[in-house]
């Protein structure tokens, strides 16, 4: 299913990325691009280097070789908070919410970068600090509406069931109004209905907010259904890159997933 938002403009360009931990090569010479407005999937068997790839994109890992161009700005290494400032948000494979805080506070934290009032105004809770809180609360509430989590607004996230926690985490990333959203297995561990819900949210985010999405997912039916183009990794190497139909028929990909007989 191709989305209407896809343009030819390249938002993220990854060139020749190699990353190793000591002697282990996690990624070797990976290159692909992400066009503005598309849903790009990264797939591959366990240990293929998918999460490492996301970690490189948002500056959490620093690849030894290669460069990443985001919005026309090229960088070799960057700090995670700089990536956030540039408009990259992400969710995690294992939920990484702020468990002591309420749903609303978690989502408000996603707005932190855009808030500026200094500590004195905040201590008084007057002037800019007060205006800012209300202003950003409105954005947070729009995200809450969007994800249909109004009823758990004030509940500490530690008490929420798994599926909802995943949704709150997506909300926190959305609250930052990112240009590029990285989703690390957004549907892991969910049942069929929850997966359908999550797919709907992802498609809506892409469609209504125009956010470019890079996602990692193991569920092939999901990947083939919602993504515009797919990158396949295996043991840190790139196996294929193209539309779901092209990837599906690629012999290397079939071998990697189904195994191959060695004579």
């Amino acid at each position, binding site marked *: 299913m191709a989305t209407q938002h896809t343009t030819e403009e390249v938002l993220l360009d990854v060139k020749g990325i190699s990353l190793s931990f000591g002697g282990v090569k996690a990624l070797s010479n990976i290159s692909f691009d992400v066009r503005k407005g598309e849903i790009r999937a990264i797939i591959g068997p366990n240990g293929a280097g998918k999460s490492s790839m996301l970690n490189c994109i948002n500056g959490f890992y620093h690849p030894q070789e290669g460069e990443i161009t985001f919005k026309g700005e090229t960088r070799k290494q960057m700090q995670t*908070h700089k990536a956030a400032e540039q408009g990259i948000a992400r969710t995690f494979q294992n939920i990484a919410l*702020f*468990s*002591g805080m309420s749903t609303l*506070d978690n989502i*408000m934290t996603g707005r932190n970068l855009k808030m500026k009032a200094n500590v004195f105004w905040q*201590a008084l809770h007057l002037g800019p600090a007060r205006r800012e809180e209300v202003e950003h*609360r409105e954005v947070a509430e729009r995200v809450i509406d969007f994800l249909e989590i109004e009823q758990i607004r004030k509940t500490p996230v530690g008490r929420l069931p798994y599926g909802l926690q995943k949704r709150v985490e997506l909300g926190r990333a959305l609250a930052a109004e990112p240009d590029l959203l990285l989703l690390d297995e957004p549907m892991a561990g969910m049942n069929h209905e929850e997966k359908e819900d999550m797919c709907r949210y992802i498609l809506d985010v892409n469609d209504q907010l125009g956010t470019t999405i890079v996602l990692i997912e193991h569920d092939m039916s999901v990947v083939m259904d919602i993504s515009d183009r797919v990158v396949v990794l295996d043991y840190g190497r790139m196996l294929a890159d193209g539309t779901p139909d092209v990837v599906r028929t690629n012999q290397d990909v079939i071998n990697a997933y189904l195994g191959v007989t060695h004579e």
Partner: protein
Amino acid sequence: MFYREAGQFKTTYEADQGIFPIIQDRWFIAIMLVISFVVIPYFANEYWFQAVIIPLYIYAIAAIGLNILTGYAGQVSLGTGAFMAIGAYATYKLCTAFPDLNILIVFVMSGLFSAGVGIIFGIPSLRIKGFYLAVATLAAQFFILWLFNKVGWFYNNNPSGTITAPPREVLGIMITGPNALAITRYYVVLSFLVVFALAAKNIVRGRIGRSWMAIRDMDIAAEIIGIEPLKTKLMAFAISSFYCGVAGALYIFCWLGSAETEAFDINLSFLILFMIIVGGLGSIMGSIMGAAFITLLPIFLTNFPPMIGIQIASDLAKHLEEIIFGVLIVFFLIVEPHGLARLWQIVKEKLRQWPFPY
């Protein structure tokens, strides 16, 4: 029934984000303020002010400071005593060097000195966490007290090695010094506590508070949504030390009158730490309740047996008191590890229905 938000409809985000959005809370705070500003001064005598209430309020300020650092930002500190000492010594130096400066302003300025030193000792927190950070702050505790003992300049080369509160007045009223009335000092300390507690409450529910809690709960995720760990942690160290510094200044100038560095030793740091653990980590109200609990419990234990007619030899009483005190704290932490603040929350949740079954 008695405590519930039902029927209190908020029509703006501003109203929903008020500091005490529920009307019963507003009443509770109003009653507490009336009690502390009107009722206590009316009934309390010199002994109660000097031995109980003034230290309680000062400990509460320090406990709020430590709770900001440990409870909200998740950085364990054992240097509270040292940061309080910096506030006290800075006040002493400032008010002897500039005798005409308003002493209340001096208190706040010395808090800033403490904040500065707090930032320096907070730098290791970027690299080390948990117990290891606690040990690093322990270095602050010992180093700063050693420095204040060793360098005579800090106590104006006073041969006794102590710092003494000089008489200072504001608007013709004695605030510090031997002739300052207990009730005046009570009002000074109370005003600081009220203003500081409200300011802390405002900070922790805003952007800065959320970034502290984000760092505490999941530092990697916090970093990835754009929170700079070093800046956020140093901010916590600065504000925490500011609170502790002012508390230290009040500790000498509004309570003890004169002291040596021993007044700020490691026992004080532990005492404040116990207060926030018992009171509840990550709660401003809990800090005050913890300070009250730790200050009032020994007094209660001393006075309770004679009240019900049990006479115990005073040395035995002292030992028993310490044993019971320790047992109570252990018992308390097992039963309610989230402290008094959590108990208070449970009471409020129960009161939503009580006295009806549902």
